[in-house]
């Protein structure tokens, strides 16, 4: 078994400049504001990579464009790119994405998580696991795994 980090030298990218959203002129105070791609990205950009002190955005594991959504249909799909092809942390990253969105989005939302096609050696297996609700539920009942996920998500709540 390989000890040590899967990817000791990840490429670190600059974070995209954050623009403060200007408050819209309120026309109808009862109107539900539609959720958009940027909002979803803001929920996940600061998730910390499980192995390195960098965010998923800094490692380009997720980008704004990797998020597809249809607010009308209450559907979102996040495609993430692990830093290396044999990344065994891929399922943990996927789980972090899922948990963060589950905690942040309205319960009507259906979320699909997948690895970017061609970026992981066992892509189909990882995708299958990440999208199996029962497997995810059981995994989150594992205290050590939940702790790992919460650690990765800690920076996103600030």
């Amino acid at each position, binding site marked *: 078994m390989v000890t040590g980090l899967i990817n000791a030298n990840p490429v670190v990218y600059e974070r995209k400049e954050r623009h403060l959203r200007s408050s819209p002129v309120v026309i109808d105070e009862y109107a539900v504001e539609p959720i958009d791609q940027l909002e979803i990205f803001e929920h996940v950009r600061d998730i910390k990579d499980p192995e390195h002190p960098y965010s998923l955005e800094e490692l380009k594991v997720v980008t704004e464009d990797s998020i597809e959504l249809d607010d009308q249909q209450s559907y979102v799909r996040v495609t993430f790119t692990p830093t290396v092809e044999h990344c065994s942390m891929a399922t943990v990253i996927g789980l972090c994405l899922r948990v963060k969105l589950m905690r942040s989005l309205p319960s009507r939302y259906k979320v699909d998580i997948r690895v970017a096609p061609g970026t992981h050696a066992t892509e189909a297996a990882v995708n299958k696991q990440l999208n*199996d609700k029962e497997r995810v539920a*059981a995994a989150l*009942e594992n205290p050590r795994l939940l702790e790992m996920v919460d650690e990765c998500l800690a920076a996103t709540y600030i």
Partner: protein
Amino acid sequence: MDGKLELRETQKLEGHSDRVWSLAWNPVTGTGGVPAMLASCSGDKTVRIWQQGSSKSFDCTAVLEETHTRTVRSCAWSPSGKLLATASFDATTGIWQQIGSDFECVATLEGHENEVKSVAWNASGSLIATCGRDKSVWIWEMQSGNEFECISVLQGHAQDVKMVQWHPFADVLVSVSYDNSIKVWVEDGDDDWHCAQSLGESGSGHTSTVWALSFSECGNRMVTCSKEYDCSDDLTLKIWDTSGNPSQTSGDGYAPWQHICTLSGCHDRTIFSVSWSSEGVIASGAGDDALRLFVENKDNVVDGPSYSMLLKKDKAHAMDVNSVQWNPKDPQVLASASDDGSVKIWELVGVSQ
């Protein structure tokens, strides 16, 4: 059937504090003056018992708690209605008996290495089957005094086993799995259980995790459900039949299953549960929050049996539907369980135009 049919919500049962995974009607209730009784199990680690009162509405009459230490994933009543088996992610299966107005855990079946996902009783109530993430299927035999002995551990699935169901009258067990296959297990005599058939290796099998199965009342057909990925044709419900090839029976009267129909293009999300009513209506519950009913097409039988959708109930729940079960004593009544934490009771009614 004249006129339009509608699935009318008659009650919403709330009480669980987490998603409801599964439910089961007590098979001896709802008839002969005995009020209908239903068990539901949840991520909140409890099982709730609901009983239909004189006003026809269901009340929660018991909460089975402080026993399972993790999600209770599945529950099943014995055919006598006297015992309730509960399968949990805590790797155990509890056996409960009603004592007065309360339920007591009278036995605990241990052995699975991790999450138990399904539990089922055979037709005579002498055997229980369980399955789980450890890829195995266990068969337990009931001894005197509510004791259970494991008589077989069946290996064969390559992955997580999602559900087990016994044939309505023969001692034939079917399991469905994350490995995309359906396996049929029979006994060779003297507790020697083996896999008699594996459905899924050839072209007509599912191409993704098979979540559930349900037998037709007479046991000559079964329906299985899945969610197919990366297909332009979303093939998600399959019907299998065993009334053909009577010459291929062996010893126990086992007849092989054949795929006869695939229902495609009906679902966008995973179908988690299916239930076949005594009147031949197949209900499905899916990840798109909807309930769907299917029936066999009796006319226009061109290339063999075919099934089509009778009706769809959009937004049946606010979240995924995890389980659907027809009331065995009243084939117009359906119960559903959801991630939204509720159980709903429905009635299939004709609507006058």
